[in-house]
């Protein structure tokens, strides 16, 4: 086989190991289908969504193509190889520093001009490039006909038609990439011609760069020269820092740029892009035909005429969110009941099989009440994420950013902050991470500091149970109000931070609105299983651990001997339960709660809530499990042990709707969970920010809860 011989030759030539792994970068414009293709090829479940900016970190995966092992790296979507936004920096650094064998550029065939603008920039890097003409199904629908062979010849880049969602063409794509990696397909390093003046300038700069061979080895000189021409700040910096004759190169570059700008009457980077687009225009004129009969309004336009209507846009957005929560509760609650009964059953089995005593109590009141109390809300989480992923996959998210931007902007935030905010309504951990879509560090930090105030899937069950118990007639409405207030408080804090700590400039909002797409069942299912998997995992780890610790804290030290009736008298079926509440009050946890109580009184909280709130900094769901443990232990012997936590709370005379309202606000706002604080540390690079975040949210939550309670008392809602 010629192909094989060539491969051997290639290998010997470069002295590679026998089974060299091929490294392929999956790059391209935002929302072109990169992650879809990456997932299909590697079998991974990375997040996909129909809006630009879903992927913010590089992700790598493996696959075998025949005998070849391939490492695929999925990169964030970018428009250009400049280095302004974090996405650009991540992608650019990867292709330059990690030097993949091939870059597979995923192109949106319905929008080739803008996509080729990036493809040609990859070609300039000198790394072999393969183009995937993705979304070819949509292109066909739109009546776009591409002469693939001819276009490929003009660009000197192999092109393969693909449909990422169906996996069509992906085998061919990988075959092509492998062949290119082995050099058996000649991807000439042909670069586009920018016209005499620029080509001249370009050559001059290359000549200057070549005075330092080491530098040219590290950074492709052809590409570096273009970046210098474009006055790219990052390229200028690299030359200054790493080039042996940096000063001279920069001086010469500035002279050349001045000449170009005078000649063309525009900034040099604009001139370069214009030339490139000019070239693309020419190439497409010969190879792309658009049937004109499909120009009447598309479905997307029709839908947007309603969804983005000037006056209806915001009401529709709020209504959609309301419907999602309503849907979540109507479907999730009955299922939650089923799970609750399962755990109650398990509890009675344990009660029958084990002798009464501290160990049995540990199992039933510690582990089952703790973990089970949280798992009851699994159906809510599943349905909530189903709703959110439908919004993401249809393309409504980008519309929501459009509709809401003015509002965000008033509070000094960017419309794109909408994405981390929205993700935070699921979970603040990915929410904080998705703040990377904000390229301005100030925007990003403010968003990170405030977005964990949103309702998240962990707070959802806590707020849900409290609204169900204290506002049984209007649970859905109260929940929705608290949900909204999460947004409002986040905005208020954002404004405060923007005016004080982070005054300053903002980043571009400019954003493509993708066409509406029908969500795939597989995609939604993926989201749901992933999120519920995380939830279950959390229940089995953090929450289990917290439950155990809290149970011990509430049961030890054991009350003095004359108090106890426990393990020695199994037949009574009564354990330490008979003796408290004083027994719990004597425990470490109880003492701690009692210690807090004076401070909590103004908000109407008692020591039990104090304990639960403290414990819930581990994870917000722990609030419920802690109350579960407290009440599990607290059970009076005559009470039916199967009574749900909800009834138990309701029966407690210390609690009333007013206190509950303040409590819900407190839970929304106060200290983010440990997982969130950890990721904030990771994202901001220092403990300073999570510490600040914990502090300001605690103070604010306390003041708000006190204000609500005290005002309520004054107005006579106290009981």
């Amino acid at each position, binding site marked *: 086989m010629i192909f094989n011989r060539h491969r051997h030759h290639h290998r010997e030539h470069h002295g590679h190991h026998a089974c060299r792994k091929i490294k392929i970068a999956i790059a391209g414009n935002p929302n072109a289908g990169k992650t879809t293709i990456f997932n299909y090829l590697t079998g991974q479940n990375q997040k996909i969504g129909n809006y630009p900016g879903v992927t913010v970190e590089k992700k790598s995966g493996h696959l075998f193509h025949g005998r070849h092992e391939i490492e695929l790296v999925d990169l964030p979507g970018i*428009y*250009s190889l*400049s280095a*302004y*936004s974090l996405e650009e920096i991540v992608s650019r650094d990867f292709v330059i520093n990690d030097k993949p064998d091939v870059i597979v550029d995923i192109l949106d065939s*319905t*929008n080739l*001009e*803008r996509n080729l*603008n990036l493809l040609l920039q990859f070609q300039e890097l000198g790394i072999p490039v393969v183009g995937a003409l993705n979304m070819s199904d949509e292109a066909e629908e739109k009546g776009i006909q591409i002469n693939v062979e001819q276009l490929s010849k003009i660009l000197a880049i192999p092109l393969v038609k693909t449909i990422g969602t169906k996996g069509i063409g992906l085998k061919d794509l990988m075959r092509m990439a492998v062949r290119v990696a082995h050099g058996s397909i000649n991807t000439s390093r042909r670069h586009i011609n920018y016209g005499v003046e620029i080509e001249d300038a370009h050559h001059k700069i290359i000549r200057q760069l070549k005075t330092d061979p080491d530098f040219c080895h590290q950074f492709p000189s052809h590409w570096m020269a273009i970046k210098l021409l474009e006055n790219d700040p990052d390229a200028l910096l690299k030359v200054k820092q790493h080039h042996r004759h940096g000063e001279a190169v920069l001086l010469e570059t500035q002279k050349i740029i001045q000449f170009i700008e005078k000649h063309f009457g*525009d*900034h040099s*980077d*604009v001139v370069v*892009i*214009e030339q490139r*687009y000019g070239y693309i225009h020419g190439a497409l004129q010969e190879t792309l035909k658009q049937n004109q009969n499909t120009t009447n309004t598309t479905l*997307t336009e029709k839908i*947007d005429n309603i969804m*983005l209507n*000037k*006056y209806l*846009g*915001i009401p529709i957005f709020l209504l959609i969110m309301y419907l999602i929560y309503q849907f979540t509760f109507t479907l999730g609650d009955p299922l939650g009941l089923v799970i609750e009964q399962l755990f109650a059953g398990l509890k009675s089995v344990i009660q029958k099989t084990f002798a009464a005593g501290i160990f049995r109590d540990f199992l039933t009141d510690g582990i089952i009440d703790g973990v089970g109390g949280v798992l009851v809300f699994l159906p809510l989480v599943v349905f909530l994420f189903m709703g959110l992923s439908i919004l993401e996959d249809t393309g409504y998210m*980008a519309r929501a*950013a*459009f*509709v809401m*931007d*003015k509002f965000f*902007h008033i509070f000094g935030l960017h*419309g794109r902050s909408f994405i981390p905010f929205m993700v935070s309504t699921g979970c603040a951990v990915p929410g904080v991470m998705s703040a990377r879509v904000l*390229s301005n560090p100030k925007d990003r930090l403010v968003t990170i500091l405030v977005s964990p105030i949103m309702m998240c899937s962990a707070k959802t069950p806590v707020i849900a149970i409290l609204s169900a118990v204290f506002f049984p007639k209007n649970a859905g409405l109260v929940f929705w109000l608290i949900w909204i207030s999460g947004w409002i408080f986040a905005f208020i804090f954002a404004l405060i931070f923007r005016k004080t700590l982070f005054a300053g400039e903002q*980043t*571009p*909002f*400019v*954003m*493509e*609105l993708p066409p509406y797409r029908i969500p795939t069942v597989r995609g939604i299912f993926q989201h749901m299983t992933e999120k519920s998997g995380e939830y279950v995992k959390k229940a089995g780890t953090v929450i289990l651990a917290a439950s155990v610790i809290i149970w011990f804290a509430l049961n030890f030290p054991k009350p003095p001997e004359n108090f106890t009736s426990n393990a020695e008298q199994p037949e009574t079926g009564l354990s330490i339960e008979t003796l408290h509440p004083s027994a719990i009050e004597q425990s470490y946890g109880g003492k701690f709660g009692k210690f807090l109580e004076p401070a909590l009184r103004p908000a109407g909280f008692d020591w039990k809530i104090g304990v639960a709130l403290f414990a819930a900094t581990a994870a917000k769901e722990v609030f419920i499990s802690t109350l579960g443990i407290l009440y599990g232990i607290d059970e009076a012997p005559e009470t039916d042990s199967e009574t749900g936590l909800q009834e138990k709370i309701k029966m407690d005379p210390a609690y009333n709707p007013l206190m509950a309202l303040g409590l819900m606000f407190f839970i929304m706002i106060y200290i983010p969970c440990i997982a969130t604080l950890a990721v904030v540390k990771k994202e901001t690079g220092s403990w300073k920010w999570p510490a600040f975040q914990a502090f300001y949210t605690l103070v604010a939550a306390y003041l708000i809860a006190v204000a609500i309670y005290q005002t309520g008392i004054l107005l006579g809602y106290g009981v």
Partner: protein
Amino acid sequence: MTEDQKHLLSQLKPGQHFTVQKVNAKGEIRRRLVDIGFLKEEKGVVIREALFCDPIEVEIKNTKVSLRRSEAEMINIKVMEQ
């Protein structure tokens, strides 16, 4: 088609067609606008505006792009009367 007096994209109302003249911005925002297709002689149309007239949606290079009025202010255009 005749030319009008207006000069900036931010001054247009939904339904108006335009031709780009120049992007008057700096740094990241200039790069983004130009990359996305606000190039000299490029034709486009303002599709709609959100509440309080901001942001706006524009069709350019066959795709829909949303941008703030403050960003549209940085784009010099010629108004095309259809």
